[in-house]
């Protein structure tokens, strides 16, 4: 993009030309075991370098394995194959050169701010006096001055996450890992903390050489990063890498910024050829994964798109309803799966049937939904057919769970069945008795 800004993008004085990677990931895959001994791919063929002086954002939908990748780099979990190298040597156990900032802060409520910050130094065997000096320094740097003897309970969310930052930075890590560090904060607090952190980074006072952060917020990624790595889903692969050459501080309203955000929206909603579902009619339950979307949410989005008319940019729609993309994407996926909408270049269009669905009354929209679900959602169709062929129109949910667990993890199998039951109930295709764990045809239909 704008390459003449390159010198300003890397403010850290430690960076030198021909920098060697702090962390390099080579051909990493990660599988989780399913219950019947099968393997469930979460990450596949990941190659990634993080070099001194850069901020990298890992962007992806939920289920893209971005947090798993972060934990592999931290050495908290071992990859199934491939390697994570730290300063050229493959990792065995926990990565000694990183510190981690958690989405949920992970502060120990029984320790004061200072004791929380000292935790890592204590583990290294630093003397108490030196420990206190360095901790106070970090507390000062991160703007927590005056709070060192407070307990986390007494602090607001933003202040708590500052403790999380101070605790991570006090050990002078080579690489700071951040797992959605701002997503538990309200919008204003998050914005403020982001800005302050970037100012520290730009001023060259930052105690870490590089930052790798996981986020599902596209704007946050574009505000923060020098490089955005977009992960696809099922299994997670690196889909695209984008260099962000904009000068800091970045202006959200500048056309370049908006163009970048739209571009990433487009990348994340377009299905690459590998992920295109095969013709829905004869595909199996393992090929079409149900998005975790409720019927109400899907219908709500359909109406919103109908009302928006030509103003159908996803980024704008998300802004209108104040959605994070994690909330929006499952609904979009549900609409495309059901054939109610198509997405192109970050724009969403209702299909003819989608328009009917959005405009219909309750009974009519149920009918449309029923036809669409039977025609295009393999799991719903499979359950319905199995019930019709059963003796009394009733089957145990365990039967379907076993089936699903051949292809999905235990939790995901539950989630898949949960969504299918939700959709099927709405479509009046089947009923569900949660106490007995039984799925059955509706009474009037089974007679």
């Amino acid at each position, binding site marked *: 993009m704008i390459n003449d800004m390159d010198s300003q993008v890397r403010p850290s004085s430690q960076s030198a030309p021909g920098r060697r990677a702090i962390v390099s990931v080579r051909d990493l895959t990660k599988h989780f075991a399913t219950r019947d001994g099968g393997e469930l791919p979460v990450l596949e063929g990941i190659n990634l370098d993080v070099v001194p002086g850069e901020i990298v954002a890992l962007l992806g939908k939920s289920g893209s394995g971005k947090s798993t990748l972060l934990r592999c780099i931290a050495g908290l979990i071992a990859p199934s194959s491939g390697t994570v190298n730290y300063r050229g040597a493959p990792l065995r*156990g926990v990565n*000694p050169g990183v510190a981690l900032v958690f989405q949920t802060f992970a502060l*120990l*409520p029984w320790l004061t701010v200072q004791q929380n910050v000292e*935790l890592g130094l204590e*583990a290294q*065997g630093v003397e108490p006096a030196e420990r206190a000096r360095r901790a106070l320094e970090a507390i000062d740097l991160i703007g927590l001055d005056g*709070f060192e003897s*407070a307990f986390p*309970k007494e602090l607001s969310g933003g202040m708590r996450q500052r403790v999380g930052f101070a605790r991570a930075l006090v050990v002078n890590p080579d690489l700071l890992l951040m797992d959605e560090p701002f997503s538990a904060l309200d919008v204003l607090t998050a914005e403020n903390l982001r800005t302050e952190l970037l100012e520290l980074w730009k001023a060259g006072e930052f105690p870490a050489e590089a930052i790798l952060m996981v986020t599902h917020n596209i704007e946050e990624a574009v505000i923060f990063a020098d490089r955005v790595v977009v992960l696809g889903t099922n299994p997670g692969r690196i889909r695209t890498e984008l260099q962000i050459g904009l000068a800091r501080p970045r202006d959200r309203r500048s056309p370049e910024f908006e163009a970048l955000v739209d571009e990433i929206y487009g990348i994340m909603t377009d299905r690459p050829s590998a992920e295109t579902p095969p013709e829905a009619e004869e595909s199996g339950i393992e090929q079409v994964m149900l998005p975790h979307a409720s019927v109400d949410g899907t219908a709500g989005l359909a109406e919103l798109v109908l009302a928006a008319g030509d103003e159908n940019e996803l980024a704008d729609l998300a802004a209108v309803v104040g959605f994070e993309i994690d909330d929006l994407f499952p609904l979009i996926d549900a609409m495309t799966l059901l054939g109610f909408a198509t997405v192109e270049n970050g724009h969403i269009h209702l299909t003819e049937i989608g328009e009917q669905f959005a405009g219909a009354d309750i009974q009519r929209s149920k009918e449309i939904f029923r036809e669409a679900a039977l025609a295009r959602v393999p799991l719903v169709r499979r359950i319905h057919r199995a019930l019709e062929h059963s003796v009394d129109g009733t089957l145990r949910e365990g039967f379907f769970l076993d089936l699903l667990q051949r292809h999905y993890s235990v939790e995901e199998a539950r989630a898949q069945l949960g969504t299918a039951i939700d959709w099927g109930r709405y479509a009046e295709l089947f009923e569900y008795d949660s106490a007995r764990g039984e799925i059955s045809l509706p009474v009037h239909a089974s007679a």
Partner: protein
Amino acid sequence: MSALRGLPGRAVLRRRFSPVDVVVLIAVLAAIYAVLQVGKGLTVSLSPAGVSKVSTDPSHLPYDAARSLLRMFIALFFSIVFTLLYGYAAAHSRRAEKVLVPILDILQSVPVLGFLAFTVTAFVALFPGSELGLECASIFAIFTAQAWNLTFSFYQSEKTLPRELDELSRSLRLTRWQRFWKIEVPNGAIGLVWNGMMSFGGSWFFLVASEAITVSSHKYHLPGIGSFVGAAIAKGDLGAVGLAIGVMIVMVIGVNVLFWRPLTAWSERYRYETTEATEVQRSLVLNLLMRSSWPRVLGRARLRMAERLARMMRILGRDDAPPPAPVTRRRAGDIVYTAVIGAVVAYGGYRAINYVATAPHAGLGEIPHCFALGAATFARVVVLLIGGTLIWVPIGVWIGLNPRVARIAQPVVQVLASFPANFLFPFAVLAFIKLGISLNIGGILLMSLGAQWYILFNTIAGASAIPSDLRETMDVYRVGRRQRWKRLIIPGILSSYVTGGITAAGGAWNASIVAEVVQYHHTTLTAYGLGAYIVQNSGNHARLLCGIAVMSVYVVVVNRLLWRRLYRLAETRYSL
């Protein structure tokens, strides 16, 4: 906030000694002196006859009570040490877990009072010619009443450690010692304190039962409030019994106010952020302590010690587990491990059955006999539970739904549940003799004296947790009384009620051992039941073993078939 800044300890130096400090200091010194005085008696040699005299002179009562109290706290100390070691091992070793957790589950269901005869003989043999053996046996009995509950609580908190705390510890590469004391123990602290309070209250009963005990023809006594009452009952001195009851009430309340209330209030700081406190715990005593400067002075001394200790314990290594071994090798290890454990269990079972079959005055015929006796005791437990439920659930619900009443009633019921019911036996027995009631029926009442309170206590807790918006909904729609119970109250209190029921049933089984044979003055009443069998055969180890084993089977089977299922139903269907 900026007032909190400054050099650590500056505030302490600047502060003058306040009257609060003096009060706390005197209280602490007095307590130390008392412990030393009372503790001197622990190793006193036995008189040649092997029995120390027990007097019912009221002037001995304070000393006896103090000895009993000391025993309780020594047992608590050992319970906590055991809990931390056992819970840690069970939670951190996959293979140890497979053995340790079921053992704990069984131990929880075994009637520990039945063991007294075993342990007394063993400990007395360990320290011949000294009261220390008896002392140990008594402390051990109390320990068995406290430890299992605590251990389960700690094990649970270890297994449910929030994932981010585990990741935090590993990513900072904390030492194992640091992880244990900074993360794992604090994370389990609230559970430990609450379960400690409950178990401590329950163990008064065992204290009283274990201080004066007869094994075969030997009568053993320890100075203590339980022996005092025992001697008073033997003499038929109801005045002395009444006095002891008064002292007991003072002790139960005193320990609650001075020890457990401050501890529960203090443990609030160990609540992890994601869980919300239902109500704030307060303690006047804790406030007083915190206002003095002792905590800070001692806190800094403790920090220095802890620092040194932490340095030494670096030797235990860091919290960075190596990658797991290949599955095949692990599986091979598992098979060997399972085989070894299985062989040990099978051999032990064979030996035990063989022992019962071949010992004199025993034989395999004892087993069906015990089951028949057990059925009688089981019938008593069932009647007790039904009666207790019919009486206390409506009352408990009424109290629980009236917050003002609940605030007063809750601590009272807690004291009632802690109060060792065996103190009240003489009065009840006297009444049975006068009215000509057989102990076969009267035993139910004796067993329920201690056990029923758990039903009440938990019902109150469950009812007060029913959200007020649901109750308002019932009002708005004018839901009638019957429907209200069916749709709201019973589902709402079910899980608390099950907890109370299982505790009450366990308490009743244990109580049967002291309630099915009772003495007053020169009269001995005996009921037909397994508890009586265990007491009467305390000298015959084969029969004793058989009796305890059968009782454990009853408890375990009923727990599995009834209580666990009810609890699961309550948790999945009716959780609020």
